[in-house]
């Protein structure tokens, strides 16, 4: 399988038109992702909380370069994500969000650190705990809340729901409900990137629960065989719904489970460690094929809103993590240490964010429910002369 690149030169031209370049600013009606281009401010070095542990690779250094702007950006973005998830919790309890709702609070550092290391041309795909990744890839609050409430203004027109957020222009490929199924999809994205010679990578994210899926190892084998630029990110929050990792995996060292594929264990509550690891992984994947990053992280909420999250773990454990490893608190301490802002200023930012989220919710609530005709749109790509057909080759005329 060494000769994998005999392809007509027209394909690279095709590649540029197929995966359109993204701007760093996100879509209309939204906020700027705070750590993007602009006046950077003073640069300094931050040490990650713990050293990286490598499997079949030399781990990167613990020293991470950053700027004031990036640090403030991390604080802002993570606080926004935190507030959004908490607001979603309230909306769910008010029965405005129904079905399944999987919240990401506690894991924000992974989303934010990863985004800081890559571009919008790199692809990200994840499972159902996707609200915050959607945001980091350019989604805005209004379309998030509207989608959660099943409204027309939602990013999937109200037809996807919590588990089906996508942002094509932002290089975000979802948003998938079935555990583990997104990993082969992600390897397919990496395959396309290699086929089209784009010099970009794909981050295929999954959890400790999905780490035991067969299709993951199948996809890893193929990716390693074909040298695909696929980076597998295991967001290990230590619980697969109600089952602790030691009860589900004979070997919970997920970064080693790739066997012949190198891996890195990362403190997923430290945004800088995540950033460093993702940067390292991108360089690695472009040269040497797949790599696994295990992000040691934690979710404060239960698996989903239907799970109290306290029957399989103690409240002490949750509050301990909140006290010792909370990603936002870590960044707050760094900001205060480096005198980039005062306690009051940070509180002001949080107040501003609260207001932003409340406004977005109000705006999303104004959006109407989808029109009944939407039931039949986007089943097939137009051009077959019909919107949808079941068993009959004509438009389904059902009176609703």
């Amino acid at each position: 399988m060494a000769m994998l690149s005999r392809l007509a030169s027209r394909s690279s031209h095709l590649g540029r038109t197929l995966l359109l370049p993204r701007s760093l600013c996100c879509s209309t009606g939204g906020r700027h992702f705070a750590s993007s281009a602009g006046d950077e401010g003073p640069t300094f070095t931050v040490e990650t909380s713990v050293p990286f542990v490598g499997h079949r690779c030399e781990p990167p250094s613990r020293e991470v370069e950053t700027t004031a702007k990036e640090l403030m950006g991390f604080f802002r973005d993570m606080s926004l994500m935190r507030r959004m998830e908490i607001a979603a919790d309230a909306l769910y309890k008010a029965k405005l969000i129904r079905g399944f709702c999987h919240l990401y609070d506690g894991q924000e550092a992974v989303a934010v650190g990863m985004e800081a290391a890559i571009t919008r041309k790199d692809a990200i795909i994840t499972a159902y705990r996707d609200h915050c990744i959607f945001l980091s890839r350019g989604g805005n609050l209004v379309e998030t809340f509207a989608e959660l409430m099943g409204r027309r203004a939602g990013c999937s027109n109200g037809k996807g729901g919590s588990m089906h957020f996508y942002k094509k222009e932002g290089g975000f490929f979802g948003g998938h409900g079935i555990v583990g199924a997104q990993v082969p999809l992600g390897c397919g994205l990496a395959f396309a990137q290699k086929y089209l010679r784009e010099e970009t990578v794909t981050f295929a994210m999954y959890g400790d629960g999905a780490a035991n899926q067969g299709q993951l190892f199948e996809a890893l084998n193929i990716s390693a065989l074909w040298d695909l630029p696929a980076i597998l990110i295991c967001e290990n929050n230590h619980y697969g719904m109600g089952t602790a990792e030691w009860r589900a995996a004979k070997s919970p060292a997920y970064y080693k489970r790739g066997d012949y594929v190198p891996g890195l264990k990362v403190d997923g509550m430290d945004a800088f460690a995540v950033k460093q690891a993702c940067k390292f992984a991108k360089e690695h994947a472009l040269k040497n094929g797949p790599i696994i990053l295990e992000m040691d992280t934690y979710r404060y909420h239960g698996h989903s809103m239907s799970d109290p999250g306290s029957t399989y773990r103690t409240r002490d454990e949750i509050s301990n993590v909140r006290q010792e490893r909370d990603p936002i608190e870590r960044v707050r301490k760094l900001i205060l240490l480096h005198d980039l802002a005062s306690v009051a200023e940070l509180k002001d930012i949080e107040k501003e964010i609260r207001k932003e989220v409340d406004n977005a919710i109000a705006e999303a609530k104004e959006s109407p429910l989808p029109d009944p005709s939407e039931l039949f749109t986007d089943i097939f790509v137009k051009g077959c002369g019909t919107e949808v057909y079941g068993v009959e080759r004509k438009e389904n005329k059902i009176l609703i």
Partner: protein
Amino acid sequence: MDRDPTVCVMGEDVGHYGGSYKVTKGLATKYGDLRVLDTPIAENSFTGMGIGAAMTGLRPIVEGMNMGFLLLAYNQISNNCGMLHYTSGGQFKIPIVIRGPGGVGRQLGAEHSQRLESYFQSIPGLQMVACSTPYNAKGLMKAAIRSDNPVVLFEHVLLYNLKERIPDEEYVLCLEEAEMVRPGEHVTILTYSRMRYHVMQAAKTLVNKGYDPEVIDIRSLKPFDLYTIGNSIKKTHRVLIVEECMRTGGIGASLRAAIIDNFWDYLDAPVMCLSSQDVPTPYAGTLEEWTVVQPAQIVTAVEQICK
């Protein structure tokens, strides 16, 4: 593959080996290992990878060495292939072609004689076509590749050796159209894939007996071409469906329901459906023969309908 560099082929032994039924013979030498990809035996993941690649704009053709093996990829085909266009609000299209041989062969055993069209037919967002001749195989394949929707193309294990003269010029057939095989007046016989040949054999006998059957190869299994089928029923008023699926939950069952829903007023006799027995396909030759519909049964059925 010449015309469009985004078309690639993925499957087991499609490259260096040339394909287990020689469908992809010669392609790997011509287009290279990056466009004709030999996958490991991992249907779930390589189908998923094909779908992921399709999300970015590539046009992969995924081969199931035998359609039955694609049952391992059912989740990918159903949830990701069929539904992604809808759940993403139209953002992503999946221009993938999933193809492979299926159907009852010559004593291949129960697990290698599956008819997957009955399982896939309820997946929303998926189009299904079945080819039956070299001419329509080429035309439908081209149409499927060019379609922006996911298409499952059902080939048949026993039809690969057919030889036919086909046009040199380029032609593309319509994915949603049925094929009029033999116009007639007395009864509409609807069939597809290998059963077409059993029907045509029975038609010879029927003509000798004085009947004039109209034979339509429906080709498009989802959606049905109710336009062509309807016109035929309005003419003959009698319908016989001959299929290779099992009686329960097969294509014939859905087609029967669609015909009754839409053309009840035009029917002079109950809609008859001849299907395979609801059994795992046995290995012994005679038993296997009795599992599927034979020409003699078709003749008897037509005589019954036309009484």
